[in-house]
């Protein structure tokens, strides 16, 4: 699976930079570069095979029922993109190291970049539509995090949110489109889909599928009218922009157009939609770019325009159009990445990006200026540079287009016009920044950046020149196989610089001269633009919509929600009653079933009587909170006894531990509550609640009775029969938890971990006032930790831990298991917190509870994944049978490791929550980190 490794390396390697971040600033950068280099090396190793015309496939089932599989393909198209993503990625890594402020720890940054890179590689290498979509959404998420790298600034947050809303929204449309496409073809495998072009194009669902898929591609590639997220994403650090808006992210959309080119292209709909949108975006982006005073804003709109160009070329549906499109994908990535980097250097050195201030930088940074000017010339399409070649191919294609009949001349005209705009904004980038007088009010005096910061730019500019001068020797082979994977053959095309005095060359010439002329008249142009161009912006409309929706939601909530807990519960119980009673009342319901009731035994009757009385007593004293808590302990005890009496020791043990932990939790919370509540409920509400409670209780009793007097088919028999042979344990409850329903348990402990994290986050830095005495006014005792109590408590910890370990190890065959063991261990620790205090315990227990939870989760998940290595489904258990004294025949099922994971998560979660509550009143705790770092 070398192809999967190309994706997995950056995805898993993303964990590396934060881990090594403590070893100094360069460590994360080196780690990231190492990971990407490895992925690049694998690709280069496979390249000869692909260049020889061989596509490499790998396939592994994931969820065959849904048509989702882990299948990858490395063909010419994928190869081109992988080389761009990893190659430019490496340069961006180097650049970012010098760009980001020295005080920044770089762990998070490189982790996010690697994550994003892995997701991008996943998109281009997937051979399954659903898999591709997963990576597609992953790029949306990770780019969101990258754009919001400095979440303190409002612009960054807004830009990131907008990008996420637009691209992830497009992703949803794409999902729908893929589902339709999969339904038409009957498979989600790309290999099958690509071979079914005719079937798809003649299918009645062709148009909706195409529209949805294009919505996905256009949002990602910032095509009009979804373009506005891209300029707003410029709030990202410049290395991120250089990466996202040159080789990756926005190229995902055009990649999709290329990938599905054999399936959809060539129809009239395809041309008008893709070609039309592309052409409009090309013109629109190029025009707006001229007027952006922000350096990065200019580059952003230029990117939009170039993406429009590529989209238009794909829209033509001709073989040579596809060649030009692919060629321009690479060329644009190379010169745009270098331009963004140059803009970043200028921003870095001058402290601003406003071209009205930055002038005449040639004198301050001649090397950077030279590099940037060459790259900008490539963007404008000046001969001897790579941009010229693909642009001329584009012009040539527009001349040969025959879709519009008598209006055919419109297309080359529009293309030339866009060319003129492109030259004008490139000229502005060159002339405004590096010449045009002296700088105005710069925050900093500019000078050349560090040597290594220029290297990535220089490498890219060298590539521009190399490709531009000797295209046939450099990019031809890869372009050939790339086109081959789109068309199934490689069309004859010439990559020469000089094709004679042809119409396309003439168009290039007009564009160059026209652009220069336009730029020389820029003052008049700016004035005209300010006066006549409509003041609408997609971003503003988007923000307005978001605000309106939020306001509507708030109004609605304010109308129906009075934040009364009593009302919530009343609605909850009332709804449940209606839902449960309706079928019973409407249907043919007999209370008693066919089974005779078991005779009443004395013990059960007594327990139940005490239980009922204690419950009523709790209700009676509910306003004296402490007393209610004491009485409800009796209820808990009676429930436990009921479990013991009916032979459910697992439940009894769990009930007991949960009972105690809840009591401690309530006592902790009670301390911060104001005095006992006064009566404030109206008589009517009182009656309503009483009725609800009575009906709900009675209803539950009726349903329970009806159910227990019937013999219903049950799955318990299955579990009882197969617990030993399949799960390797005699304790059915535990085997169900860790084996039969292991996935559910994994989900549950994950929820526990999330809940603990959320609780800690909510309590974080919350400080509450303390009451000076108890509700009766009696002052608190002076002795915080009575000596006798502390001395009595300490020996109980090892005892409790022993019991916990015993229960844990033995759980698979006798009552017990990780959950109960975790609770018992927590109980032992809680006692130390009570008797000796937080500081004492912390000084001796140097374990971060977060680490416990994390290790536990990882262990449980790893156990589950372990079975995959033996080609068994997730969480299949394996057993060993060593005999250990005292514990008896110990079933060392792999489920035990899983159970230890459960144990750690439960222990960690309980302690995190209790400790979080216990910290609430500590004045000095404000500077304590919840991560347990200090």
């Amino acid at each position, binding site marked *: 699976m070398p192809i999967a490794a190309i994706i997995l390396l950056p995805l898993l390697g993303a964990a590396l930079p934060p881990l090594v971040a403590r070893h100094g600033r360069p460590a994360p950068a080196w780690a990231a570069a190492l990971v990407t280099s490895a992925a690049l090396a694998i690709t280069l190793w496979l390249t000869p095979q692909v260049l020889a015309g061989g596509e490499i496939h790998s396939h592994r089932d994931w969820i065959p029922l849904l048509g989702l599989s882990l299948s990858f393909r490395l063909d010419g198209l994928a190869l081109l993109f992988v080389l761009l993503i990893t190659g430019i990625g490496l340069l961006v890594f180097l650049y970012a190291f010098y760009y980001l402020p020295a005080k920044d720890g770089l762990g998070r940054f490189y982790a996010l970049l690697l994550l994003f890179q892995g997701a991008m590689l996943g998109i281009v290498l997937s051979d399954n539509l659903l898999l591709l979509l997963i990576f597609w959404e992953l790029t949306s998420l990770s780019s969101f995090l990258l754009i919001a790298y400095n979440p303190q600034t409002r612009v960054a947050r807004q830009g990131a949110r907008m990008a996420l809303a637009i691209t992830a929204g497009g992703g949803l449309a794409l999902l729908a489109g893929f589902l339709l496409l999969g339904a038409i073809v009957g498979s989600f495998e790309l290999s099958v889909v690509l071979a079914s072009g005719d079937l798809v194009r003649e299918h009645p669902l062709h148009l909706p599928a195409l529209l949805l898929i294009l919505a996905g591609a256009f949002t990602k590639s910032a095509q009009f009218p979804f373009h506005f997220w891209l300029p707003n994403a410029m709030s990202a650090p410049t290395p991120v922009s250089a990466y996202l808006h040159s080789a990756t992210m926005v190229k995902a959309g055009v990649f999709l157009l290329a990938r599905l080119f054999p399936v959809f292209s060539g129809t009239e709909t395809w041309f008008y939609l893709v070609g039309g949108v592309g052409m409009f975006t090309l013109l629109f982006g190029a025009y707006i770019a001229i007027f952006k005073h922000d350096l990065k804003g200019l580059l952003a709109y230029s990117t939009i325009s170039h993406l429009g160009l590529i989209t238009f070329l794909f829209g033509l549906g001709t073989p040579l159009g596809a060649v030009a499109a692919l060629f321009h994908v690479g060329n644009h990535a190379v010169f745009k990445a270098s331009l963004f980097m140059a803009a970043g250097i200028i921003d870095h050195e001058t402290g601003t990006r406003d071209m009205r201030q930055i002038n005449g930088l040639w004198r301050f940074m001649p090397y950077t200026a030279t590099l940037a000017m060459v790259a900008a010339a490539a963007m404008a399409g000046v001969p001897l540079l790579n941009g010229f070649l693909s642009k001329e191919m584009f012009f040539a294609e527009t001349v040969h287009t025959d879709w519009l009949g008598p209006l055919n001349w419109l297309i080359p005209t529009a293309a030339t016009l866009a060319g003129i705009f492109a030259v004008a904004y490139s000229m502005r980038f060159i002339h405004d920044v590096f010449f045009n007088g002296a700088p105005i009010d710069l925050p900093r005096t500019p000078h050349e950046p560090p040597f290594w910061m220029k290297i990535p730019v220089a490498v890219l500019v060298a590539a521009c020149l190399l490709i531009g001068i000797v295209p046939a020797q450099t990019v031809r082979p890869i372009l050939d196989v790339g086109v081959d994977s789109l068309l199934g053959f490689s069309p004859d095309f010439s990559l020469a610089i000089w094709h004679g005095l042809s119409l396309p060359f003439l168009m290039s010439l007009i564009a160059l001269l026209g652009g220069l002329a336009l730029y020389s008249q820029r003052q008049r142009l700016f004035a005209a633009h300010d006066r006549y161009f409509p003041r609408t912006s997609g971003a503003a409309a988007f923000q307005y919509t978001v605000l309106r929706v939020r306001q509507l939601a708030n109004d609605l909530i304010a109308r129906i929600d009075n934040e009364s807990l009593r009302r919530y519960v009343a609605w909850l119980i009332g709804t449940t009653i209606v839902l449960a009673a309706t079928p019973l009342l409407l249907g043919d319901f007999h209370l008693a079933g066919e089974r005779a009731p078991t005779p009443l035994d004395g013990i059960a009757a007594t327990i139940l009587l005490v239980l009922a009385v204690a419950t009523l007593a709790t209700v009676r004293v509910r306003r004296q909170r402490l007393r209610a808590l004491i009485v409800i302990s009796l209820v808990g005890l009676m429930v436990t006894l009921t479990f013991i009496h009916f032979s459910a020791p697992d439940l009894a043990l769990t009930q007991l531990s949960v009972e105690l932990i809840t009591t*401690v939790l309530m006592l902790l919370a009670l301390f911060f509550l104001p005095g006992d509540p006064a009566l404030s409920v109206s008589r009517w509400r009182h009656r309503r609640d009483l009725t609800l409670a009575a009906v709900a209780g009675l209803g539950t009793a009726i349903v329970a009775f009806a159910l227990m007097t019937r013999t219903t088919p049950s799955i318990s028999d299955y579990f009882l029969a197969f617990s030993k042979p399949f799960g390797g344990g005699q304790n059915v409850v535990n085997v169900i938890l860790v084996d039969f329903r292991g996935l559910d348990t994994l989900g549950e402990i994950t929820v526990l971990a999330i809940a603990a994290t959320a609780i800690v986050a909510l309590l974080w830095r919350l400080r509450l006032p303390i009451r000076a005495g108890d509700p009766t006014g009696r002052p608190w005792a002076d002795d915080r930790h009575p000596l006798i109590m502390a001395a009595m408590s300490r020996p109980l910890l090892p005892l409790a831990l022993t019991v916990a370990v015993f229960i844990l190890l033995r759980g698979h065959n006798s009552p017990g298991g990780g959950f109960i063991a975790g609770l018992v261990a927590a109980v032992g620790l809680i006692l130390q917190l009570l008797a000796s205090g937080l500081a004492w315990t912390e000084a001796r227990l140097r374990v971060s509870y977060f680490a416990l939870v994390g290790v536990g989760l990882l262990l449980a998940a790893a156990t589950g994944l372990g079975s995959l290595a033996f080609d068994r489904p997730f969480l299949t258990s394996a057993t060993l049978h060593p005999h250990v004294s005292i514990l008896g025949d110990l079933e060392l099922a792999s489920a035990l490791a899983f159970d230890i994971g459960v144990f750690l998560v439960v222990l960690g979660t309980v302690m995190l929550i209790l400790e979080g509550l216990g910290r609430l009143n500590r004045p000095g705790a404000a500077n304590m980190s919840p991560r347990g770092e200090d």
Partner: protein
Amino acid sequence: MILSLSIYAALAMLAVAILLNLWRLAIGPDDTDRVLALDTLFINTIALLVVLGIHFDTTVYFESALVLALIGFIGTAAFCKYQLRGDLIE
């Protein structure tokens, strides 16, 4: 013979003790009395479980009794700490 007789006697005495605990729990008068009543009730329940275990000749009750002892003590400690200091974990 003697064993079963003594078991019955023990069960009867424990039942009376538990009833008295419940009575104290009901009348109070103080919350401290109730905490004490609850604690004693836990102890008597442990005894009851162990005696019942001997009576039915089974070991399943013992573990419950063990955990009950642990939990009962800590519960009482928590209530006492609350009464004394209000703040459980300081």
